[in-house]
């Protein structure tokens, strides 16, 4: 088991390394060929005061006059030594900004992730158990509506209803405006977190609920549920013993594999709510041509999604005996030894 697991992790490590190199290279080429001029992005509005010679000097200082390959190697070796560069908009190391923004986003994404997972799972199970009834149709209709709703539109709707009309929550941002940083309370932060988290989780629910519903229907129609019923099991005991585990495993896996959607959703939700997280930083970096920050974010989001998928795979490997136990004749080979 340990041997198998370490081999699995080793292979995944290699895969991650190749993925990162490929992503970095493609992204580097894209940025190189984009209309973003790093010198202009760096200098910004003072561009008029900078002459062509000065521009050339800055470009030479950064190595922009060298061939693309050399530039990539320069950048790559800096990354490998842990230096992600300095953000042009914030004038601070990229790693610091990502770290700080990630904490904000993590709270948001984690809340949304847990909420959508739990609510989606329950809705899916209930819909499947009551398949064909009005309750099932209601849940299904709700999920289909949600699944076809764009995140930003949902965000705006939530904003209008809860922030503008009902005035229950602040309109946006991570902390109240006009308050000193040290005066911001935890309650303030939570209040600002609720609407974006709700937006993000409402949309995540549909995915989990519909998948869980389908899986639960399959499980309920399975031979082993029929046999369990024939042995006199029913109701909650039947669900607890044979339904839950068989449905929970794919649901949990799905939820971890949905990290990419979570990140993508966070980008839009944070933008709508002006919430200072990773997503908003990504949009800023893109719009204002902050190449170092954008590159740092690409690497970070790649890692984030990759780790989500890795956890999903690991859960299967650890929890599902069919994956863990190896082959069908494990019993015999073990006995021979």
């Amino acid at each position, binding site marked *: 088991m340990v041997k198998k697991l370490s081999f699995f992790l080793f292979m995944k490590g290699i895969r991650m390394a190749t993925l990162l190199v490929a992503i970095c290279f493609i992204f580097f080429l894209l940025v190189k060929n984009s209309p973003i001029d790093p010198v202009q992005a760096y200098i910004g509005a003072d561009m008029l005061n900078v002459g062509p010679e000065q521009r050339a000097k800055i470009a030479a200082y950064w190595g922009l006059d060298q061939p693309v390959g050399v530039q990539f190697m320069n950048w790559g070796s800096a990354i490998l030594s842990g230096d992600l560069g300095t953000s042009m908009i914030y004038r601070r190391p990229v790693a610091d900004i990502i770290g700080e923004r990630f904490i904000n986003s993590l709270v948001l994404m984690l809340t949304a992730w847990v909420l959508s997972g739990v609510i989606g799972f329950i809705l899916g199970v209930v819909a499947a158990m009551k398949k064909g009834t009005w309750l099932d149709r209601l849940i299904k209709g709700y999920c289909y509506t949600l699944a076809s709703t764009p995140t930003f539109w949902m965000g705006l709707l939530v904003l209008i209803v809860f922030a503008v009309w009902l005035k229950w929550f602040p309109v946006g941002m991570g902390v109240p405006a006009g308050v000193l940083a040290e005066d911001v309370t935890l309650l303030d932060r939570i209040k600002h977190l609720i609407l974006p988290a709700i937006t993000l989780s409402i949309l995540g629910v549909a995915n989990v609920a519909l998948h869980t519903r389908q899986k639960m229907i399959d499980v309920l129609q399975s*031979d082993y549920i029929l046999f369990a019923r*024939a*042995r006199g099991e*029913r109701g909650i005991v039947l669900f607890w*013993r*044979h339904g839950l585990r068989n449905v929970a495993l794919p649901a949990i896996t799905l939820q971890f594999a949905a990290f990419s959607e979570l990140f993508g959703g966070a980008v839009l939700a944070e933008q709508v709510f002006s919430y200072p997280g990773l997503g908003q930083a990504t949009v800023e970096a893109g719009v204002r041509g902050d190449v170092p920050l954008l590159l740092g974010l690409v690497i970070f989001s790649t890692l984030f999604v990759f780790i989500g998928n890795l956890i999903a795979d690991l859960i299967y490997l650890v929890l599902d005996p*069919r994956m863990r136990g190896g082959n*069908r004749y494990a019993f015999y080979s073990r006995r021979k030894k």
Partner: protein
Amino acid sequence: MSILEVKNLSVSFKQYTTGMKQKELQVISDLNVNLEAGKILAVVGASGSGKSLLAHAILGVLPSNAKISGSMTYAGEELTYSRKIALRGKEIALVPQSVNYLDPLMKVGKQVRTSVRSGDPARKQKEAFERYHLTQKVEELYPFQLSGGMARRTLLSTAVVSGAKVIIADEPTPGLDPAVMKEALRHFRELADSGCAVMLITHDIDSALSIADEIAVFYAGTTVEIAPVADFTGKGEALRHPYSKALWQALPQNEFIPLPGTQPHASSLPPGCLFEPRCPWATAACRKGRPDMRELREGTVRCIHAT
């Protein structure tokens, strides 16, 4: 003395055809069987003749779009749906077809223990495993790790530990090599000899003949004949129904003559006797209506011409 009696059982399914049109699909019609304590009744017939559905109907585990009519009695009392729920797994146990009927994520020892209805589950499970030569390590295995024979004995253990008096075995032998199959069949004989009533559903007439007391022949969702095992001999002269005779004669070790035609599908049942379109004895009278089951020479038959 019969313990479980099924009389004129009919099962139909509601099906949506085109659009919202509903259609009743009659899959079992006027079926009769009778289980007696200490005896094995083998139910034989081609695929789709309603054998498994009969088992599911007795246990009350048919899908929700199924409609059943007719009467079932257990120990002399009407077997209602609520009584089925109370009795299944306790008095009436199922031995299913394959390892797919075990929960893939639960160790088999635990699955056997959850079938115990009275007494100490751990002890009963160990006794059953010992009885069927399953080592202690098997308890800790998951269904996918079992070999065909081990799976068979594990499934049988679930029925044995429940202490049920009626055991319904649904195709318990396919895919087993002759030695393992013989052993599996012997287990059913032992159960019957210890006082259980066993219904053995199979399409393997040979294995049915080797252990059963009576054979019920199914065709297109009904019983055409119930005969003592001894009648399945020679050229089938002692058999009553033309289908039983044809089935017997089609066996390789007998005449090896196949019967032309196929069993009608539930959606296109003939109006009269269900076997009439393929029957060598068919007359105009056979098309007039479904014949009733009638007693004939120690057995029962559903044919107006049988002698």
